[in-house]
Structure formats: C-alpha cells, structure tokens
C-alpha cells in the first residue's frame, strides 16, 4: 500500500476524468452528474492523501512512500515519486482543495459541466505530480501540464465571458509561465548533458560535488529561479495575477497562485543550488519585502474585491519568499506553513466571495452593504478567514507570519523585517475595510437606492448547507493550525533541517572562496556584494 499510494493519488483524478468524459451528453443539461462524480473522485483522492500523514514517519530525513520505475530508457527518465516533510502537507492541501473547488463550482458552472470537471481533475493530477516528482523531467512534465487546464478553463468558463478579457487573462497567464519554462528546459537539458541523469538525488550530488562548470551552472540556477518566481509570483513578475483572479472561475483561481512556485523555489532552487541561492538571496529578500509593502498598498486602494484579493495574495506570497530566502530555520518553516495557510485562507475567501459575486456578477466593494444580517453564516466565516489572513493570534496566519518576521528580524535584517511588519499592519486596514463595506456600511450613499431588484445586495444569498460545511472545515483548520502549528511543522522541520544543512555547506564553500588566496578577485567581488553588507551573516 505504501509503495503505491502516490500513484493512486495521481491516477484517481485521471480515472474520475475518464468516467466524466464517458458520461452521455444528454444528461448534461438536466442533471449535475459530472459534478457528483467529480466530488466523489476528489473526496476519494482526499482520503488517499490523508493516508500520507497517517503513515508518515516524522523525524526521518529523506523521502518516503517512494516509487521508482523505469519509464524511458534513453534519455533516462524514470517514474520516480516520493514525499518528504516539505511536500507532504502540500499534497494533502491539494487533496483538500479539490472537493472545496467542486463545491464552489456547483452552482457557478451551468453548462459544459463534463469538460469543466474533467479539466479540473486533470489540474489536480498535475499539481500533485509537481509536488511528488523526484525525477526532474517528470517534474517538468507535470509543471507544464498544470498550465493547460488553468488557461483553458479561464478562457471557457471565465467570469466575464461577454468581453474578451477572460481570453486575454488566460493567454497572459499562459505566456507568463510558459516562456520562462523554455530556459528552464534548456537548463534541465544542460544538467542532463553534464550529469547523465534526471534523478533528483544524483543531480543534487553532482552539483554539490562542485565539478560542474561554474558560470554555466550559475545561469542554470537563474533559469530555475525565474521560472519559479513567475509562478509564485514574485514582485515584478506578477502581471498575470490580478487578471487571473478577476477572470478565472473561482475553483481555478483559488489554486493558481503560490504553492507550486514556492515549493519549487525551495526544492529546486534552494535545495538544489545552495551556494548559488545564497547569491540570489539578497535580491529575493529585497523583492519580497518590497512586494509585501507594494501588495498591501495596492490592496488598500482597490475598489474591486478580486483585485484586492490578488494584491493581498501577492503580499502574503512575498511573505513566504522572504521566509525562504532568509535561510533561517524559523523563517523557512514559517514560509512553508504560510504557503499552506495561504492556500487554505485564499480558498475560503474565494469560495465565500464567489457566492456573493455569482448572482449579479458584481465585485465592486461599493456594490454591497449591510449583508451581515442578510447572510449571517457567510459574514461570520468571511470575517474568520479575513482575520486569519491579517494574522490574528490563535489563527493560522499569525504563526506563519510571526515565524517569518522573527526569523528575518534576528537572522537577516531589521530594516526588511520592519518593512514586512508594516505590510501586516496595512493588511489589517484593507481586510477590515472590505468587511466593513460588504457586510456593515448600511448608510453608504451607493446604498440609498439599494435593495431594489437586481442590486447585488438584494440578490445575495447565504451559504447552502454543503458550502457551509466546506468553509467551516477550512475555518476549523485555520483554528487548529493556529493553536497547534506542530501538527504540520513536526513533519516539515526535519525536512528543512537537511536543507539548512546543505545551505550551511553552501555558505562554507562561499566563505572558502572568500578566504582562498588563489581567487583574490572573486573574494573582493563577493565581499562587496549586498549579501555581506545587508545580511550580516
């Protein structure tokens, strides 16, 4: 069972997809059979993912539930999958978000349901594949595959189909992520040409041995970094994010950002190229800290809730990047935790506002008002999710942000920690502002004519039973992770230890280069690099 579980998790959504595609067409208009099938499939997959933490041996380094089969002989591409503490909870998170996504689409998707749910399940397989692949080429395959359903579903089921904006958002998302993956593939081919293997451990060992030509390897690591930074997205490469958040179907938008890119940054940049990641760190830290502030400031002035959520997400993802590239134990485990948190909180907010948005396609904050009494369940859960996003103690956002901030403050730079903390304060301002405008604010002028037929506030409905259950589960999870973060971090920390260890080795090799009398030039270059000025390591 343990050997096959990851394959089962990968194949179950594909089997569901095949079943959905085989359904007869005539049922499509009358019944919601595809949605039921998708729900069952995703619940089954979620149950399978729960097998992982149940049988995971904590405090054991290395990968577990491994499976390693020959796939293609030449070039040697293997079907090699496995999880460690880093990817474990991300797989579970994808498993959890799938049924939530199906519930969020239950009413929103009215036609072509077969296609929608089939592609939705394909997306799930692709995402799990990214988290569990231990063969670089297999990883690349799933990475590319994960673009297609998002792009097609956004174009087909986008929220504003009347104009061409959904298609534009889809195209923009695809090109933003596909073009950097071209250098990524070149880099993979280069690594294969020099190491003769796509296997993660082999390539990692080859890079650590220091026998690969240096300046070319630096370019390879840059190609990796850019491809992942776009997917996160990091500040400056986030052009696709606001568009996708306003246009994509709710179930797709909630999974598109964050996880894939952040996981890849840790696994395939920091862990694979520790020495080179050190050199990139000052830039990434600066981008992340400015990104936190930038996201918060832009979220503050948005009038449209989807755009607000996009910039808020940019801010909280920048928090994760800050934690990763601080290279402190606390910061990194905070970053991983925050990646999970962002997934949970983002999904809840997307689902909740999606319910408000759907009847009248209204997303301007000014369109709403006084909904606290009309939709009490929705308002309560929305407030809980917002407070978690702000980072209120006892909710999950607090732990992640605190770990990142304390790691940055003690281990990296007080200036950047202060900038990041400013972002936290602003996040309270914009989220509370949004709650005030949507759920309270009865006396707003836009509301004077309110409650006439067709006004978003008039047509708004409260959550249905199943939606309530789904979001309440997410809210419970926020509480659980807030009170007892050890649930997740117990598995995450041993995995991070090996990474920080290799980072220390990377730092040592850099110091060795610094001290080496044979490289006086490189020593001066590195000594004057911003890392040593700002980092103070």
């Amino acid at each position, binding site marked *: 069972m343990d050997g096959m579980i990851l394959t089962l998790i990968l194949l179950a959504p594909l089997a569901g997809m095949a079943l959905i595609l085989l359904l007869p*067409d005539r049922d499509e208009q009358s019944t919601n059979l595809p949605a039921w099938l998708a729900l069952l499939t995703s619940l089954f997959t979620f149950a399978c993912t729960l097998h992982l933490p149940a049988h995971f041996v904590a405090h054991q380094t290395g990968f577990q539930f491994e499976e390693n089969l020959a796939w*293609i*002989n*030449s*070039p040697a591409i293997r079907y090699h999958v496995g999880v460690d503490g880093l990817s474990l909870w991300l797989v579970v998170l994808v498993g959890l978000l799938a049924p939530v996504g199906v519930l969020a689409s239950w009413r929103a998707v009215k*036609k*072509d349901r*077969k*296609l929608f749910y089939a592609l939705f399940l394909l997306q799930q397989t692709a995402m799990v594949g990214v988290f569990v692949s231990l063969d670089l080429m297999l990883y*690349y*395959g*799933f990475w*590319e*595959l994960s*673009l*297609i359903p998002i*792009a*097609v579903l956004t*174009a*087909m089921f986008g929220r504003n*189909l009347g104009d*061409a904006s*959904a*298609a534009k958002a*889809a*195209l923009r998302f*695809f*090109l933003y992520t*596909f*073009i950097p*993956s*071209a*250098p990524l*593939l*070149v880099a993979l*081919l*280069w690594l*294969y*040409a020099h190491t003769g293997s796509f296997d993660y451990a082999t390539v990692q060992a080859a890079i650590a041995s220091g026998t690969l030509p240096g300046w070319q390897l630096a370019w390879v690591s840059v190609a990796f970094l850019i491809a992942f930074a776009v997917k996160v997205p990091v500040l400056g490469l986030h052009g696709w994010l606001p568009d996708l958040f306003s246009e994509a179907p709710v179930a797709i938008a909630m999974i598109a950002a964050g996880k894939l890119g952040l996981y890849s940054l840790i696994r395939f940049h920091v862990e694979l190229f520790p020495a080179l990641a050190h050199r990139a760190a000052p830039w990434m830290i600066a981008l992340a800290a400015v990104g936190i502030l930038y996201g918060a400031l832009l979220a503050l002035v948005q009038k449209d809730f989807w755009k607000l959520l996009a910039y808020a997400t940019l801010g909280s993802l920048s928090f994760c990047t800050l934690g990763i590239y601080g290279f402190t134990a606390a910061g990194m485990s905070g970053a991983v935790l925050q990646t999970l948190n962002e997934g949970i909180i983002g999904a809840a907010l997307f689902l909740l506002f999606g319910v408000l948005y759907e009847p009248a396609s209204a997303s301007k904050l000014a369109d709403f008002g006084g909904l606290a009494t009309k939709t009490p369940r929705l308002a309560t859960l929305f407030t809980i999710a917002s407070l978690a996003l702000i980072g209120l103690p006892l909710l999950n956002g607090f732990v992640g942000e605190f770990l990142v901030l304390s790691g940055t403050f003690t281990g990296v730079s007080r200036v950047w920690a202060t900038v990041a903390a400013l972002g936290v304060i602003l996040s309270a301002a914009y989220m509370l502002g949004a709650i005030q405008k949507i759920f309270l604010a009865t006396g707003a002028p836009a509301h004077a004519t309110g409650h006439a037929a067709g006004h978003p506030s008039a047509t708004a409905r409260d959550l249905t039973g199943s939606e309530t259950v789904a979001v309440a589960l997410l809210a419970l999870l926020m509480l659980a992770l807030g009170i007892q973060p050890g649930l997740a971090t117990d598995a995450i920390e041993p995995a991070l230890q090996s990474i920080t260890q290799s980072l220390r080795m990377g730092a040592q090799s850099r110091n060795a280069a610094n001290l080496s009398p044979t490289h006086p030039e490189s020593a001066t270059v590195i000594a004057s690099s911003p890392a040593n000025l700002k980092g103070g390591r």
Partner: protein
Amino acid sequence: MTPDILRILPELILTLTGVVVMLTDATLAPRSSRKPLGWLAALGTTIALCASLGQAALPAGTAFYATVQTDAFSAFFHTLICAIVLAAILLSIDALPQHHRGEFFALIVFGAVGMCLLTSAVELLVVFIALEISSISTYVLAGYRKHTAQGPESAIKYFLLGSFATAFLLYGIAMLFGATGTTQIQEIATLLPAARSHTLVILAFALMMVGVLFKVSAAPFHVWTPDVYEGAPTPVVALMSTAPKVAAFALLVRLLYGAFPLLHTLWMPLLWAVAILSMTVGNLAALRQTNAKRMLAYSSIAHAGYLLAALAGVGSQPITAIAFYTAAYAAMNVGIFALLSLVSGPDEHRSQIADYRGVLHQSPLTGGLMLLFLISLIGIPFTGGFFAKFYSFSTAMNGGAAWLVLIGLLNSGIAAAYYLRFAIALAQPAAKNGHAVTLPRWTLATSAAVLAAGAATLVLGIAPGWVLSAATAAAHSFTVIGGL
C-alpha cells in the same frame, strides 16, 4: 540472397493500387459515387504499409544495381509515409466535393510511390525521378479546388517554384557527377576526397541543398508554403504538409550522412543558420496570421527549424531525433488538419481563426481533440510534440549547441502564443453574429483517421520507447551502411 523485387515491394503495391483505382474509375457510371474507390485505395495502402513493416525484417542491402537500398532507415520512413497516406485517403473519402474523385485517390497513391522511393533511393537519378513523381501528383492535388480563386493560384505557385527547386537539385546532381564521376551516394562519399575540383563539389552541394530545403520548406526557401496551404483542399494539406516533408527529410539525412559526411564542418554551421532562421521567421510570421491554415503553414516552417536543430548533434543521434520528430510531427499535423477539414466542411466556410469560436462548446470531442493536437504542437509534456522537441534539442545540447537550444526553446515560447490563441478561440463561446453552424457528422473513415492520429500523439508522448527504438535502429543501420 533477397530477390530484388522485395526491396521495392511497397512501391509496387502502391503503383498497382493506383492503376486499379484509375481503371475502376473508368468502368463506373459517371453519376455513381466514387467513395468505393477511396476504400480501394485505402486497402492498397494498408497492404503497402504491411509490406513496409515486413521490409524491416529483411537483411539490409541494395537492389537493382545499387540504386535502391532497404534497411531499418528506409523501412521506418516507408511505414511512416504509408500511414500518413492512409490517413489522408480516409480523410478525403467524405471531405471532398463530389466530382472527379477517382483520379484524386489515384494521384495520392502515385504520389506515395514517389515519396516511398525517395527514402530508399541511393542513386541520385532515382532520387530525382522519385522526387518528380511525388511532386507532380502534389502539384495537381494542390489545385483541386478549381472553382475557387486560391485553388489554381496555389497549384501554379507550387508548380513553378517547385520545378525551379528541383531544377536546382538536378544541376547539383550534374555537377557532382562532373566532379566525382558517379551518382551513387555511397560511391560519392568514397570518391569525394579525390574529387576533380573542390569548388565544383561545394557548388553542387549548395545547389542540392537549395532543392531539398525548398521541399522541407525551411527558411529562406519557404515563401510558397502559406499560399499553397491556404488554397489547397484541407485533406490534401494534411498530406502535403507531412508526407513529402518526411520524405524530403529522409533524403536530407541520406545526403548529409550518406554522401557528404566529409563536408560535415561545412554543412553544420549552414544548417544551424537555416534552423534558427526557419524557427524565427516561421514563428514571427505565424503570430500575425488570422487565417487558420496560413498560421499552421508558418508553424510547419518553424517545425522544420526545430527538426534541423537536431543536426547540430554528434554521432547517429541526430538521425534518431529527426526520425522521431518526423513521426510526431506527422501525427499532430495530420490530426489538426483533419479536424480543420472536418469542422470547416467540404466548402471550407471556416477559414479565419475567429470562425472556430465555440467549437469546444458545440462538440467537446472535436474541440478536445483539436486542443490535444494544439497542445502537442506547443510541445507540452505527455504529448508527442514534447518528446520530439526534447530529443531534437537534447541532441543539439549534446553537440554543444547550447545557444541554438536556447533560441529554439524561446521560439517555442513565442509559438505557444499563436497556438494558444487558436485553442482559446475554440474555448470561447461562439460569436453571436457568426454562423452558428452545426458540425458535420463524424463518419467512419474520418473518425478512424483522426482517432489514429490522436492515439499516435498520445502514445508518442507517454510511451515513446517503441518508436524511439525503431528510430534508433533506423539511425544505427544507417551508420553501419553509410560508413559514417
């Protein structure tokens, strides 16, 4: 000792099929349906396909005074070409307007004779004859939409430019004969160091390259492609964008590795430049197209560039990569053109990309398959197009051409934009004022062709091992006999 006749068995079967189709056509009543002729041609091609597979089991060797050579290489390309031709015949059975169909199928089959012969000929005059046989039938087929303005234009353009290009090839052959005193490919390779005039050899080589690169529509010899594709009937484009190119690539490999391995240092940088030019020109021009067939025409120019990039590799790897790429390229191109033909109907009323809006909503199966082929053309993993690019570029990478690979992959990033624009048009709801056409019915012949292309695209992407080992064998047999 293998009888000579076995070495040209597929060609013989195809010729016979063509003759039978023409004779039967003459006996049928003028008003009666010509569809049975299509099935007859399909049957003959299937037998030829089996014969090609059988040729792989023969010991490698030459026949007819060393003018024809069968080996794993020729068997690979024979099989591929017969499969493409079979798909094209199946597509045409229901997709063409009613008139003159008997000769249509005969022409396709005769063209196939030339293409097959091209991949096994090792005597340059036989090469020339084979090229002419295949070209002349494609010239005629390209002009099959006689009642439209673009049909005859397409045929005339193709004919004039095509004969010009074959003339170049013939000049090259003549000069090479002057320099070495032979037209047999292996003899050329051995006699080349003792050639009478090095300048003459280089000139001959250059002229021959012009002829072959025209046939594979590599830039800067590509200008005919979009106009011809736009005017020709779509099932014919499915054929002529794949089979003649596959044959021409086989010829290119025979020439480069069979006749001119000694000029390696000369042709390598030349083909580098052509590869980069082809992909860049093809992709940049495709970005600006609004007509679906013109866009795919430019895309095929770009694909010729990706294919040529493999030649930067070392050893027999490039041949493997090229053989695999042609197979994957054929599967996805036949597939996408087949579906264009199916969706736009015999009168081809949908020509612009925008006309394809809503296909995915109207018929998820048709739209989904189109999506699959477009994804494969982009080069997304788990489709044939990915491994094709992967092998081509990793071969180039092993040859040390990192810059070529980077340019190639950035190009495929640009290419994603226009394929995806098409894919998104399929996914968008149909235009309100546009023609709300109901899609034509899937017939047995069409579905067989399209599903086979779809299955091939997926198999090449998920389990490329089989075709890859065949391609490796092809490359290997070549190295053994060609004396590289």
